[in-house]
């Protein structure tokens, strides 16, 4: 079996993703359409939340990917800092806009759900606030990459920012457990069966989560390929200017 470090070679990464990307994108489309259609059309209303329970199929997967997207960036940033593999730094860069969009979807769908259920679009609740800060970290990370011309310096500084932001990614996940206050309820999915949503909502929710994970993966691979090409182009153009 090939070592994972082989994919740090841009050529190997490009040839492998050339084959697997269409499959991941297709599977993501199928899972998203199936999960969302199942959840929207075929599940009943909740006895307390009414039809707003259908928002769970967008809100929970996007929130999950917002946090795990940052954690993926953290792993990629650590690989860059320790092993100096360019592909990992570029993968982290590629994931940031996707994670930011997931955070926006989680915030917007949460607000739309909160208005009829809590009577307010927004509350300075620990989880909501840490999520908003996570979104600001995503914006800061994207802006820092754009602001620095030298790719290696940008990768170094954004990796450090990513380490700091990881505190808020973890807080977003565990805020409800750390501070037992605020409006936001506990986890909808958990290894503890007692905490999970009712079975009728559970399976379509899992399909939607699979769809969002695959969508995230497909977009990150596509965007990493773009970043690798953009980096090569900048290197070639710099060589042209020097000649």
């Amino acid at each position, binding site marked *: 079996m090939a070592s994972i470090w082989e994919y740090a070679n841009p050529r190997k990464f490009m040839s492998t993703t050339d084959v697997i990307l269409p499959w991941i994108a297709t599977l993501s489309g199928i899972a998203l359409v199936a999960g969302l259609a199942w959840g929207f059309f075929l599940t009943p209303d909740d006895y307390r939340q*009414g*039809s707003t329970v*259908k928002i769970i199929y967008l809100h929970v997967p996007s929130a999950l990917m917002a946090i795990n997207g940052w954690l993926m960036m953290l792993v990629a940033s650590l690989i860059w800092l320790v092993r100096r593999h360019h592909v990992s730094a570029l993968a982290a860069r590629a994931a940031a*806009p996707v994670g930011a969009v997931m955070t926006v979807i989680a915030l*917007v*769908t949460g607000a*739309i759900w909160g208005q009829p259920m809590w009577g307010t679009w927004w509350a300075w609740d620990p989880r909501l606030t840490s999520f908003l800060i996570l979104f600001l970290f995503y914006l800061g990370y994207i802006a820092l990459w754009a602001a620095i011309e030298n790719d290696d310096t940008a990768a170094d500084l954004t990796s450090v920012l990513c380490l700091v932001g990881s505190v808020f990614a973890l807080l977003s996940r565990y805020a409800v457990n750390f501070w037992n206050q605020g409006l936001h309820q506990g986890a909808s999915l958990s290894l503890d069966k007692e905490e999970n949503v009712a079975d009728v909502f559970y399976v379509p929710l899992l399909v939607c989560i699979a769809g969002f994970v695959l969508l995230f993966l497909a977009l990150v691979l596509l*965007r990493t390929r*773009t970043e690798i*090409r953009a980096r090569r182009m900048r290197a070639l153009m710099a060589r042209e200017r020097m000649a």
Partner: protein
Amino acid sequence: MMPDLGKYAGAVLSAYAVSLAIIAVLVLWSLWRARRVKAALEKVEARRHGQG
């Protein structure tokens, strides 16, 4: 067939509309940028080979 969403129809439909629109924009933007960068790189490489 459209399910009966009752008094929360506006909230549910707007959540789906906004989310799907945002995802569509992200996918289209990623594809557009991928195509644009690929074409630009091919142009630079062709110029380089032409010189070499």
